[in-house]
């Protein structure tokens, strides 16, 4: 239940005089509360502006970095094109080389086959050679035996020719050769 306003104007004035004081105190309180809040808002604004400035600087820096990167990307695209062409050329050369390599491999294979055949023939030749060497060796041995026999025979012939009989019959043989035929 709120009090009714006094009917007497003077009484009302007295009441309002006091209530005006309450209003003044409320306004003073509001002022005192708002003053630090205003100062705080100013600080926030200053901090926000500093932050915004920093972000603006960062954005400008990022813009520059972006431009640099875009230039680098353009350069790289150019380099990539050249690299692509070189790569294609290299690939073509590689294909040709691979073809050559295939041919070489085939030739090598053929050569290897030939070589194997040759090696087989060589082995056979070696076998034949060994047999021939054996034969030669035997022939040498036979020859040596023959030579020895020849020597023996030569000695026997020499001895025979040196014998008195041989010499005493020389005439006979000369007659033989002369008249007897060849």
């Amino acid at each position, binding site marked *: *239940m*709120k*009090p009714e306003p*006094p009917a*007497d104007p*003077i*009484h009302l004035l*007295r*009441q309002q*005089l*006091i*209530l005006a*004081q*309450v209003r*003044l*105190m*409320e306004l003073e*309180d509001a002022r005192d509360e708002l003053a630090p809040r205003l100062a705080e808002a*100013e600080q926030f*604004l*200053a901090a*926000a*502006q*500093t932050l*915004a*400035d920093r972000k*603006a*600087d960062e*954005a*400008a820096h990022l813009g520059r970095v972006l431009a640099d990167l875009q230039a680098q990307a353009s350069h790289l695209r150019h380099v990539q094109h050249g690299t692509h062409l070189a790569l294609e050329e290299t690939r073509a050369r590689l294909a040709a080389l691979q073809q050559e390599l295939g041919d070489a491999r085939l030739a090598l294979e053929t050569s290897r086959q030939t070589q194997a055949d040759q090696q087989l023939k060589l082995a056979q030749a070696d076998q034949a050679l060994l047999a021939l060497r054996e034969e030669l060796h035997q022939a040498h041995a036979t020859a040596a035996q023959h030579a020895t026999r020849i020597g023996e025979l030569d000695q026997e012939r020499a001895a025979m020719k040196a014998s008195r009989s041989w010499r005493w019959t020389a005439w006979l043989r000369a007659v033989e050769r002369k008249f007897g035929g060849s």
Partner: protein
Amino acid sequence: MAHPPVITGEIEGPRPLRAQAGRVVLTGWCLCDGARPAGIRLATPAGTLEAVTGLPRDDTGAPTDSGFRVEGRLPAGVHLARLEVQTPGGDWLPFRSHAFAVEEEPFQAKVEAVEEGTPVARRQHVAGWALHPGGEIAELSIRYAHQEIPCVLGLPRADVPRRFPHHPQAAHCGFQTRDILGAGTGPLRVKARLRDGRTCVSRTPVRIAVPSDPNHPPGFSFTDDPARLPRLALAVPPEATPATAPLNLLFVLPGSFAANHALHVAALANELCAQGHDCAVAVAHDPGTLSHHDAPRFRGLTHEEAVRDPAFRNGRGPDLIHAWTTREIVRRLVRQLLDRFPARVCVHLEDNELLLLAQSLHRSVEDLAALPDDELDALVPPALSHPRRSMEFLRTADGVTVIVDALREFVPAGRPCHTLWPAADARHFGPLPLPTHFRRLLDQAAGTTVLFYHGNIHPANAAEMRELYAAVLRLNESGHPTTLIRTGLDSVDGLGSLADRVRPHVLSLGQVLHHRHLPALMSLADIFVQPGWPDAFNRYRFPSKLPEFFALGRPVVLPRVNLGEQLRHGLDAYVLERADAAGITAAVVELRRDPALAARLAAGALAFARAHFSWRRSAEELANFYATLATSRP
């Protein structure tokens, strides 16, 4: 490839950089490859301002003409502004980027046909022009002293459009006051209300000093200092002793923060917070009333929030719940809280709860005691205490606090109990001088006695408040002019036929929203009176206004009950066996006749307040009491 130029320099001026009233002023210095740049400009999306360069500088250690200044206007708003420097090759390079706040151009008014510097003393019309660059004016008035005179708007002006060529009102922004100046002294302001609802004021250099008019006779002073009520110059209180084991404390209140006991809880919680405890206060309704309190250090919660999450800093629940009274709404909430949190419980008693219930239900205590449980359950409202459940609540509490020793009668045997006296908020309540200037304006007769009472009238105190009003009437009728200044609301009309007769002597101010504003009003009082007598209501209460009465340093008249039993009559206060109409009248007459006694009681009141009323001491004692409580629950 040529090397880019090196730009150095700085923008000066306090941050935030701001164009006040729409006007940009920016100064600084700048060098381009060590020389004065060809040009400097401030570029924004809203426009570009060229700088004046080559201003002398002697502080940069570089060429002395490196200074620059940008001046101009930009549209209101926040702009991303680039300060750019022109190179010798003609290119513009950015030098600094700033967020630049441009305020709206202010409301402008010009008063004409009066001589600036010479106060206007003649009663005349005042004319001029008024324009708001950012809006359309709907109403205009001039103000000075206590006067406000409406103006006619829309008079033609040929000169203003030259300055504001794009403003639609510029050609018709002339004004003239509807009436001639009335009496009053003070600087002239022009106040406008815009069509978009905004209000703005323009201060002018014109001063009005009209000495009189038909409503203000010659000699009426407009220059006296206005009468003001005193306010306490706050002293910085000493730091509280830090708690060795800080607690999570949850206070549970039955009402809102606007209730008297909320003042007690708020003061205690603030002090406990100052000690390092974490305090939350849960109210049953209107949590917005927390704004009535000055700088609370605790958290305000609703009952529902307290159950859901009391939000203590360490993430845990309450260590201790202090239930403020045994009222059902509090008891039920505490029961819910205990289902969630293993907290200790302390219950505070500050009234004869059974008597309050009986008065509210218009039954006797004995009748209520005889009712069966189910009937009682149906009768007892949430805002009052249940005779049986409240006793059970007290029996299961870990501790009980009481506002006066008499309430220990309700505390079950064996329960730890602590008496917790209230105090006055030392930030606002203290000895204040009588504002004699203000009293001269207020008093209807010389020698008037002013009594002050802040508090509501409710069924429990209606009878004794009637005695106070009757005393005021008696005093006036017996030739002792007396005014009772009252704050608070009345829930009952206890005055009856007395009301009309006493009304001329009572200034009812209604509810003063902020308790901190009361001391200034209380300073108007010569004497404080607490009416009442020893009975079942007063025996178990401690009127919370008493510590505030004592803190102001005025004689206090009160009955010999509750606090009155602790006081020495004639030294600490004027203690009456019964503070009824007759007793109060006699006490006031005696105090007015005996200034020495009044002075002695004023000093005694102050001394008693200093010795016995301190929220800091009460909070320290309460914290010590909490520390002694061991939980009785598993």
